[in-house]
Protein backbone atom coordinates (compact mmCIF):
# COMPACT_ATOMS: atom_id res chain seq x y z
CA UNK A 1 0.00 0.00 0.00
CA UNK A 2 1.36 3.37 -1.00
CA UNK A 3 1.84 6.02 1.64
CA UNK A 4 -0.80 8.35 0.21
CA UNK A 5 -3.36 5.54 0.23
CA UNK A 6 -2.59 4.93 3.86
CA UNK A 7 -2.97 8.66 4.60
CA UNK A 8 -6.31 8.67 2.76
CA UNK A 9 -7.53 5.72 4.83
CA UNK A 10 -6.42 7.36 8.08
CA UNK A 11 -8.17 10.64 7.19
CA UNK A 12 -11.35 8.86 6.11
CA UNK A 13 -11.36 6.75 9.27
CA UNK A 14 -10.93 9.87 11.42
CA UNK A 15 -13.75 11.63 9.58
CA UNK A 16 -16.05 8.61 9.94
CA UNK A 17 -15.31 8.48 13.67
CA UNK A 18 -15.83 12.20 14.07
CA UNK A 19 -19.07 12.10 12.07
CA UNK A 20 -20.42 9.23 14.15
CA UNK A 21 -19.47 10.97 17.40
CA UNK A 22 -21.16 14.21 16.30
CA UNK A 23 -24.24 12.34 15.10
CA UNK A 24 -24.60 10.48 18.39
CA UNK A 25 -24.07 13.66 20.42
CA UNK A 26 -26.67 15.56 18.42
CA UNK A 27 -29.12 12.65 18.64
CA UNK A 28 -28.65 12.60 22.42
CA UNK A 29 -29.19 16.36 22.62
CA UNK A 30 -32.13 16.23 20.24
CA UNK A 31 -34.65 17.37 22.83
CA UNK A 32 -32.52 20.12 24.34
CA UNK A 33 -31.45 21.93 21.15
CA UNK A 34 -35.05 22.87 20.35
CA UNK A 35 -35.64 26.59 20.23
CA UNK A 36 -39.21 26.28 21.45
CA UNK A 37 -41.64 23.72 22.86
CA UNK A 38 -44.83 22.85 21.05
CA UNK A 39 -48.20 22.80 22.85
CA UNK A 40 -48.18 18.98 22.69
CA UNK A 41 -44.76 18.89 24.40
CA UNK A 42 -46.03 21.32 27.04
CA UNK A 43 -49.10 19.14 27.64
CA UNK A 44 -46.96 15.98 27.93
CA UNK A 45 -44.40 17.50 30.30
CA UNK A 46 -45.52 20.89 31.58
CA UNK A 47 -42.75 23.20 32.83
CA UNK A 48 -43.36 24.39 36.37
CA UNK A 49 -45.20 27.68 37.02
CA UNK A 50 -42.82 30.61 36.67
CA UNK A 51 -40.26 28.64 34.64
CA UNK A 52 -39.42 30.70 31.55
CA UNK A 53 -39.46 28.88 28.21
CA UNK A 54 -40.36 29.47 24.58
CA UNK A 55 -43.63 28.21 23.20
CA UNK A 56 -44.21 27.89 19.46
CA UNK A 57 -47.17 27.05 17.25
CA UNK A 58 -49.84 28.42 14.94
CA UNK A 59 -52.28 31.11 16.04
CA UNK A 60 -55.74 29.50 16.15
CA UNK A 61 -58.19 31.10 13.71
CA UNK A 62 -60.79 33.16 15.51
CA UNK A 63 -59.00 33.09 18.86
CA UNK A 64 -57.36 36.53 18.73
CA UNK A 65 -59.00 39.06 21.09
CA UNK A 66 -57.75 42.47 22.13
CA UNK A 67 -58.77 42.96 25.75
CA UNK A 68 -58.12 45.55 28.41
CA UNK A 69 -56.70 44.42 31.75
CA UNK A 70 -56.24 46.98 34.53
CA UNK A 71 -56.47 49.71 31.96
CA UNK A 72 -53.76 48.17 29.74
CA UNK A 73 -54.40 46.64 26.32
CA UNK A 74 -53.70 42.92 26.24
CA UNK A 75 -53.61 40.47 23.35
CA UNK A 76 -55.30 37.18 24.05
CA UNK A 77 -55.02 34.25 21.66
CA UNK A 78 -54.53 30.49 21.51
CA UNK A 79 -51.69 28.70 19.80
CA UNK A 80 -51.80 25.12 18.59
CA UNK A 81 -49.68 22.48 16.88
CA UNK A 82 -52.65 20.40 15.78
CA UNK A 83 -52.28 18.06 18.78
CA UNK A 84 -52.62 20.44 21.68
CA UNK A 85 -53.29 24.09 22.34
CA UNK A 86 -52.25 26.67 24.91
CA UNK A 87 -53.98 30.00 25.65
CA UNK A 88 -51.58 32.96 25.61
CA UNK A 89 -51.79 36.51 26.97
CA UNK A 90 -49.33 39.15 25.81
CA UNK A 91 -49.27 42.80 26.86
CA UNK A 92 -46.93 44.11 24.21
CA UNK A 93 -46.66 45.07 20.57
CA UNK A 94 -47.27 42.14 18.21
CA UNK A 95 -44.91 41.75 15.22
CA UNK A 96 -46.16 42.89 11.80
CA UNK A 97 -46.45 39.33 10.55
CA UNK A 98 -48.77 38.28 13.39
CA UNK A 99 -52.05 36.97 12.02
CA UNK A 100 -54.42 34.04 12.45
CA UNK A 101 -52.82 30.85 11.11
CA UNK A 102 -49.32 32.33 11.42
CA UNK A 103 -46.56 30.49 13.23
CA UNK A 104 -45.24 32.38 16.26
CA UNK A 105 -42.74 31.81 19.05
CA UNK A 106 -43.52 33.34 22.45
CA UNK A 107 -41.19 33.70 25.43
CA UNK A 108 -42.77 33.53 28.87
CA UNK A 109 -44.06 31.18 31.53
CA UNK A 110 -47.19 29.29 32.50
CA UNK A 111 -49.55 30.67 35.12
CA UNK A 112 -51.03 28.17 37.59
CA UNK A 113 -54.31 28.30 35.62
CA UNK A 114 -52.50 26.97 32.51
CA UNK A 115 -52.42 30.28 30.65
CA UNK A 116 -49.08 31.24 29.08
CA UNK A 117 -47.99 34.80 29.94
CA UNK A 118 -45.69 36.01 27.16
CA UNK A 119 -43.10 38.75 27.51
CA UNK A 120 -42.01 38.56 23.86
CA UNK A 121 -43.74 37.33 20.71
CA UNK A 122 -41.76 36.61 17.53
CA UNK A 123 -43.31 35.79 14.17
CA UNK A 124 -42.04 32.64 12.48
CA UNK A 125 -42.72 32.92 8.79
CA UNK A 126 -42.92 29.82 6.64
CA UNK A 127 -40.78 28.91 3.64
CA UNK A 128 -43.36 30.09 1.10
CA UNK A 129 -42.71 33.26 -0.87
CA UNK A 130 -45.50 34.67 -3.03
CA UNK A 131 -46.54 38.09 -4.29
CA UNK A 132 -49.63 39.82 -2.97
CA UNK A 133 -51.70 39.63 -6.15
CA UNK A 134 -51.27 35.85 -6.31
CA UNK A 135 -52.50 35.57 -2.73
CA UNK A 136 -55.47 37.79 -3.55
CA UNK A 137 -56.30 35.68 -6.61
CA UNK A 138 -56.00 32.42 -4.68
CA UNK A 139 -58.22 33.83 -1.93
CA UNK A 140 -60.80 35.06 -4.43
CA UNK A 141 -60.92 31.64 -6.06
CA UNK A 142 -61.33 29.99 -2.69
CA UNK A 143 -58.21 27.91 -3.40
CA UNK A 144 -56.46 29.00 -0.21
CA UNK A 145 -57.23 30.78 3.01
CA UNK A 146 -54.04 32.00 4.76
CA UNK A 147 -55.50 31.29 8.18
CA UNK A 148 -56.03 27.63 7.27
CA UNK A 149 -52.46 26.57 6.64
CA UNK A 150 -49.92 26.10 3.86
CA UNK A 151 -50.64 27.54 0.40
CA UNK A 152 -50.98 25.24 -2.62
CA UNK A 153 -47.67 24.38 -4.32
CA UNK A 154 -46.07 27.13 -6.37
CA UNK A 155 -46.18 25.05 -9.56
CA UNK A 156 -49.99 25.33 -9.59
CA UNK A 157 -50.03 29.13 -9.73
CA UNK A 158 -46.58 30.19 -10.97
CA UNK A 159 -47.77 31.17 -14.42
CA UNK A 160 -51.09 32.70 -13.44
CA UNK A 161 -54.00 31.80 -11.26
CA UNK A 162 -56.83 30.24 -13.21
CA UNK A 163 -59.96 32.20 -12.46
CA UNK A 164 -63.48 30.89 -12.58
CA UNK A 165 -66.05 33.06 -14.33
CA UNK A 166 -65.76 35.95 -16.72
CA UNK A 167 -63.32 38.29 -14.95
CA UNK A 168 -60.21 36.57 -16.28
CA UNK A 169 -57.00 37.88 -14.77
CA UNK A 170 -53.70 38.24 -16.47
CA UNK A 171 -50.79 36.17 -15.28
CA UNK A 172 -49.27 37.70 -12.14
CA UNK A 173 -45.90 37.50 -13.88
CA UNK A 174 -46.89 40.44 -16.08
CA UNK A 175 -47.83 42.48 -13.05
CA UNK A 176 -44.66 41.53 -11.27
CA UNK A 177 -42.86 43.20 -14.12
Amino acid at each position, binding site marked *: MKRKHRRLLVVLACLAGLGTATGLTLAALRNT*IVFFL*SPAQVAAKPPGPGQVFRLGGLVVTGSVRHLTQNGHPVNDFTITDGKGSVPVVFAGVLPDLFREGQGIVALGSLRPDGRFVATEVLAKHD*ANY*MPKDVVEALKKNGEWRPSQGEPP*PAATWDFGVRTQGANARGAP*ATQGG
Partner: protein
Amino acid sequence: MDATVSTPRPGGWHRFANPGRFLRLAGRVTPPIAWAGGILTAAGLLWGLFIAPADWQQGEAVRIMYLHVPSAWLASAGYFGLALCALSSLVWRHPLADLAAVEIGPVGAGFAALCLATGSLWGRPTWGTYWVWDARLTSMLVLFFLYLGHIALIRAFDDPERGYRAAAILALIGAVDLPIIHFSVQWWNTLHQGNSISLTSAPKMYIGMLAPLLVSAIGFTLLFAALVLARLSAAVMERRTRALLLAQVRSA
Protein backbone atom coordinates in the same frame (compact mmCIF):
# COMPACT_ATOMS: atom_id res chain seq x y z
CA MET B 1 11.75 26.03 2.59
CA ASP B 2 11.39 24.43 -0.79
CA ALA B 3 11.38 27.44 -3.09
CA THR B 4 10.65 25.89 -6.45
CA VAL B 5 7.34 24.31 -5.56
CA SER B 6 7.67 20.55 -5.83
CA THR B 7 6.00 19.30 -8.99
CA PRO B 8 3.86 16.17 -8.80
CA ARG B 9 4.22 13.61 -11.55
CA PRO B 10 2.25 14.60 -14.67
CA GLY B 11 -0.78 12.67 -15.80
CA GLY B 12 -4.28 12.23 -14.37
CA TRP B 13 -5.92 15.11 -12.61
CA HIS B 14 -2.75 15.68 -10.61
CA ARG B 15 -1.40 17.73 -13.50
CA PHE B 16 -3.67 20.60 -12.40
CA ALA B 17 -1.63 20.83 -9.23
CA ASN B 18 1.35 22.01 -11.27
CA PRO B 19 1.65 25.71 -10.31
CA GLY B 20 2.92 26.77 -13.74
CA ARG B 21 0.05 25.10 -15.53
CA PHE B 22 -2.35 26.56 -12.97
CA LEU B 23 -1.03 30.09 -13.58
CA ARG B 24 -1.48 29.79 -17.34
CA LEU B 25 -4.99 28.33 -16.99
CA ALA B 26 -6.09 30.81 -14.29
CA GLY B 27 -4.78 33.73 -16.32
CA ARG B 28 -6.99 32.67 -19.19
CA VAL B 29 -10.24 31.80 -17.33
CA THR B 30 -10.28 34.37 -14.51
CA PRO B 31 -11.25 37.47 -16.58
CA PRO B 32 -14.29 35.87 -18.28
CA ILE B 33 -15.45 34.34 -14.98
CA ALA B 34 -15.10 37.72 -13.25
CA TRP B 35 -17.00 39.54 -16.00
CA ALA B 36 -19.78 36.95 -16.15
CA GLY B 37 -20.03 37.00 -12.35
CA GLY B 38 -20.17 40.80 -12.20
CA ILE B 39 -22.83 41.04 -14.89
CA LEU B 40 -25.02 38.24 -13.48
CA THR B 41 -24.72 39.59 -9.92
CA ALA B 42 -25.70 43.09 -11.05
CA ALA B 43 -28.58 41.71 -13.12
CA GLY B 44 -29.82 39.45 -10.32
CA LEU B 45 -29.63 42.20 -7.69
CA LEU B 46 -31.29 44.85 -9.90
CA TRP B 47 -34.00 42.36 -10.87
CA GLY B 48 -34.53 41.30 -7.27
CA LEU B 49 -34.33 44.74 -5.67
CA PHE B 50 -36.38 46.73 -8.17
CA ILE B 51 -38.43 44.47 -10.47
CA ALA B 52 -39.41 41.32 -8.59
CA PRO B 53 -42.66 41.56 -6.62
CA ALA B 54 -42.74 42.13 -2.87
CA ASP B 55 -43.82 39.25 -0.65
CA TRP B 56 -47.43 39.27 0.52
CA GLN B 57 -46.45 38.91 4.20
CA GLN B 58 -42.98 40.42 4.47
CA GLY B 59 -43.46 43.24 1.99
CA GLU B 60 -40.31 44.88 0.65
CA ALA B 61 -38.12 43.34 3.38
CA VAL B 62 -38.07 40.11 1.38
CA ARG B 63 -35.60 41.72 -1.04
CA ILE B 64 -32.77 41.15 1.46
CA MET B 65 -33.12 37.52 0.35
CA TYR B 66 -31.34 38.24 -2.95
CA LEU B 67 -28.18 39.04 -0.97
CA HIS B 68 -28.71 36.82 2.07
CA VAL B 69 -29.32 33.48 0.34
CA PRO B 70 -26.33 33.65 -2.07
CA SER B 71 -23.99 34.64 0.76
CA ALA B 72 -25.28 31.80 2.95
CA TRP B 73 -24.81 29.35 0.07
CA LEU B 74 -21.29 30.62 -0.64
CA ALA B 75 -20.26 30.58 3.02
CA SER B 76 -21.13 26.87 3.10
CA ALA B 77 -19.78 26.06 -0.38
CA GLY B 78 -16.56 27.94 0.39
CA TYR B 79 -16.05 25.92 3.54
CA PHE B 80 -16.69 22.75 1.56
CA GLY B 81 -13.95 23.88 -0.83
CA LEU B 82 -11.69 24.50 2.16
CA ALA B 83 -12.34 20.95 3.39
CA LEU B 84 -11.54 19.52 -0.07
CA CYS B 85 -8.26 21.50 -0.08
CA ALA B 86 -7.50 20.12 3.36
CA LEU B 87 -8.14 16.57 2.20
CA SER B 88 -5.90 16.84 -0.86
CA SER B 89 -3.24 18.59 1.22
CA LEU B 90 -3.20 15.89 3.90
CA VAL B 91 -3.48 12.92 1.57
CA TRP B 92 -1.78 13.90 -1.69
CA ARG B 93 0.38 16.79 -0.40
CA HIS B 94 -0.68 19.02 -3.26
CA PRO B 95 1.31 22.25 -3.01
CA LEU B 96 -1.54 24.25 -4.54
CA ALA B 97 -4.11 22.91 -2.09
CA ASP B 98 -2.42 24.63 0.85
CA LEU B 99 -2.12 27.92 -0.99
CA ALA B 100 -5.77 27.63 -2.05
CA ALA B 101 -6.81 27.03 1.57
CA VAL B 102 -4.98 30.21 2.59
CA GLU B 103 -6.81 32.19 -0.09
CA ILE B 104 -10.33 30.71 0.27
CA GLY B 105 -10.52 31.46 4.01
CA PRO B 106 -10.95 35.26 4.00
CA VAL B 107 -13.33 35.21 1.01
CA GLY B 108 -15.54 32.60 2.65
CA ALA B 109 -15.42 34.42 5.99
CA GLY B 110 -16.54 37.59 4.22
CA PHE B 111 -19.60 35.84 2.80
CA ALA B 112 -20.36 34.24 6.18
CA ALA B 113 -20.24 37.70 7.79
CA LEU B 114 -22.46 39.09 5.02
CA CYS B 115 -24.91 36.23 5.57
CA LEU B 116 -25.09 36.90 9.32
CA ALA B 117 -25.41 40.67 8.88
CA THR B 118 -28.12 40.54 6.21
CA GLY B 119 -29.95 37.82 8.11
CA SER B 120 -29.96 39.96 11.22
CA LEU B 121 -31.30 42.97 9.30
CA TRP B 122 -33.95 40.74 7.73
CA GLY B 123 -34.94 39.21 11.05
CA ARG B 124 -35.78 42.52 12.72
CA PRO B 125 -38.73 43.49 10.45
CA THR B 126 -40.02 39.94 9.87
CA TRP B 127 -39.49 37.99 13.10
CA GLY B 128 -39.27 40.99 15.39
CA THR B 129 -35.68 40.42 16.56
CA TYR B 130 -32.13 40.83 15.27
CA TRP B 131 -30.84 37.62 16.77
CA VAL B 132 -32.02 34.45 18.48
CA TRP B 133 -29.97 31.44 19.52
CA ASP B 134 -31.80 28.91 17.40
CA ALA B 135 -30.02 26.00 15.73
CA ARG B 136 -29.74 27.55 12.25
CA LEU B 137 -28.40 30.91 13.38
CA THR B 138 -26.05 29.41 15.94
CA SER B 139 -24.57 26.84 13.55
CA MET B 140 -23.99 29.59 10.97
CA LEU B 141 -22.21 31.69 13.62
CA VAL B 142 -20.07 28.65 14.43
CA LEU B 143 -19.13 28.41 10.73
CA PHE B 144 -18.04 32.07 10.80
CA PHE B 145 -15.85 31.39 13.85
CA LEU B 146 -14.41 28.26 12.15
CA TYR B 147 -13.40 30.48 9.24
CA LEU B 148 -11.75 32.97 11.61
CA GLY B 149 -9.94 30.17 13.42
CA HIS B 150 -8.71 28.74 10.12
CA ILE B 151 -7.51 32.15 8.90
CA ALA B 152 -5.57 32.68 12.13
CA LEU B 153 -4.18 29.14 12.42
CA ILE B 154 -2.88 28.83 8.85
CA ARG B 155 -0.82 32.00 9.34
CA ALA B 156 0.26 31.34 12.92
CA PHE B 157 3.53 29.43 12.39
CA ASP B 158 6.98 30.57 11.27
CA ASP B 159 7.18 27.37 9.26
CA PRO B 160 4.21 27.63 6.87
CA GLU B 161 4.06 23.84 6.42
CA ARG B 162 3.13 23.40 10.09
CA GLY B 163 0.37 25.98 9.72
CA TYR B 164 -0.94 24.21 6.60
CA ARG B 165 -1.09 20.89 8.42
CA ALA B 166 -2.83 22.25 11.53
CA ALA B 167 -5.31 24.32 9.50
CA ALA B 168 -6.13 21.36 7.25
CA ILE B 169 -7.08 19.30 10.29
CA LEU B 170 -9.22 22.16 11.61
CA ALA B 171 -10.93 22.53 8.21
CA LEU B 172 -11.80 18.83 8.06
CA ILE B 173 -13.10 18.73 11.63
CA GLY B 174 -15.14 21.89 11.05
CA ALA B 175 -16.79 20.33 8.02
CA VAL B 176 -19.19 18.48 10.35
CA ASP B 177 -20.89 21.87 10.82
CA LEU B 178 -22.00 21.92 7.17
CA PRO B 179 -24.67 19.17 7.40
CA ILE B 180 -25.71 20.61 10.77
CA ILE B 181 -26.34 24.01 9.17
CA HIS B 182 -28.25 22.46 6.29
CA PHE B 183 -30.48 20.14 8.29
CA SER B 184 -30.85 22.31 11.42
CA VAL B 185 -34.23 23.59 10.22
CA GLN B 186 -35.50 20.02 9.78
CA TRP B 187 -34.01 18.36 12.84
CA TRP B 188 -35.00 20.95 15.41
CA ASN B 189 -37.64 23.58 16.08
CA THR B 190 -36.10 26.81 14.86
CA LEU B 191 -37.27 30.36 14.37
CA HIS B 192 -35.59 30.31 10.97
CA GLN B 193 -37.94 28.97 8.31
CA GLY B 194 -37.32 25.72 6.46
CA ASN B 195 -35.65 25.41 3.08
CA SER B 196 -37.66 26.95 0.24
CA ILE B 197 -35.43 25.40 -2.41
CA SER B 198 -34.23 21.82 -2.21
CA LEU B 199 -33.12 19.09 -4.54
CA THR B 200 -35.89 16.75 -3.52
CA SER B 201 -39.02 18.88 -3.73
CA ALA B 202 -40.54 21.67 -5.79
CA PRO B 203 -39.48 25.21 -4.80
CA LYS B 204 -41.91 26.96 -2.48
CA MET B 205 -41.35 30.30 -4.13
CA TYR B 206 -43.05 32.32 -6.85
CA ILE B 207 -41.12 31.92 -10.11
CA GLY B 208 -40.75 35.71 -10.44
CA MET B 209 -38.79 35.70 -7.15
CA LEU B 210 -37.01 32.40 -7.73
CA ALA B 211 -35.50 33.45 -11.08
CA PRO B 212 -33.68 36.59 -9.84
CA LEU B 213 -32.54 34.63 -6.77
CA LEU B 214 -30.94 31.96 -8.97
CA VAL B 215 -29.34 34.57 -11.26
CA SER B 216 -27.93 36.38 -8.23
CA ALA B 217 -26.68 33.10 -6.69
CA ILE B 218 -24.92 32.06 -9.93
CA GLY B 219 -23.42 35.55 -10.26
CA PHE B 220 -22.08 35.60 -6.69
CA THR B 221 -20.71 32.08 -7.14
CA LEU B 222 -18.75 33.13 -10.24
CA LEU B 223 -17.48 36.21 -8.40
CA PHE B 224 -16.36 33.98 -5.54
CA ALA B 225 -14.50 31.73 -7.97
CA ALA B 226 -12.87 34.68 -9.72
CA LEU B 227 -11.77 36.20 -6.39
CA VAL B 228 -10.21 32.94 -5.22
CA LEU B 229 -8.50 32.32 -8.58
CA ALA B 230 -7.05 35.85 -8.63
CA ARG B 231 -5.85 35.58 -5.02
CA LEU B 232 -4.36 32.15 -5.66
CA SER B 233 -2.55 33.34 -8.81
CA ALA B 234 -1.11 36.24 -6.85
CA ALA B 235 0.01 33.87 -4.08
CA VAL B 236 1.75 31.54 -6.54
CA MET B 237 3.50 34.46 -8.21
CA GLU B 238 4.52 35.89 -4.85
CA ARG B 239 6.08 32.55 -3.97
CA ARG B 240 8.01 32.48 -7.24
CA THR B 241 9.21 36.05 -6.80
CA ARG B 242 10.45 35.28 -3.33
CA ALA B 243 12.25 32.19 -4.62
CA LEU B 244 13.93 34.23 -7.37
CA LEU B 245 15.02 36.94 -4.93
CA LEU B 246 16.39 34.34 -2.53
CA ALA B 247 18.34 32.71 -5.36
CA GLN B 248 19.79 36.10 -6.34
CA VAL B 249 20.85 36.85 -2.78
CA ARG B 250 22.48 33.45 -2.45
CA SER B 251 24.43 33.72 -5.69
CA ALA B 252 25.58 37.27 -4.98
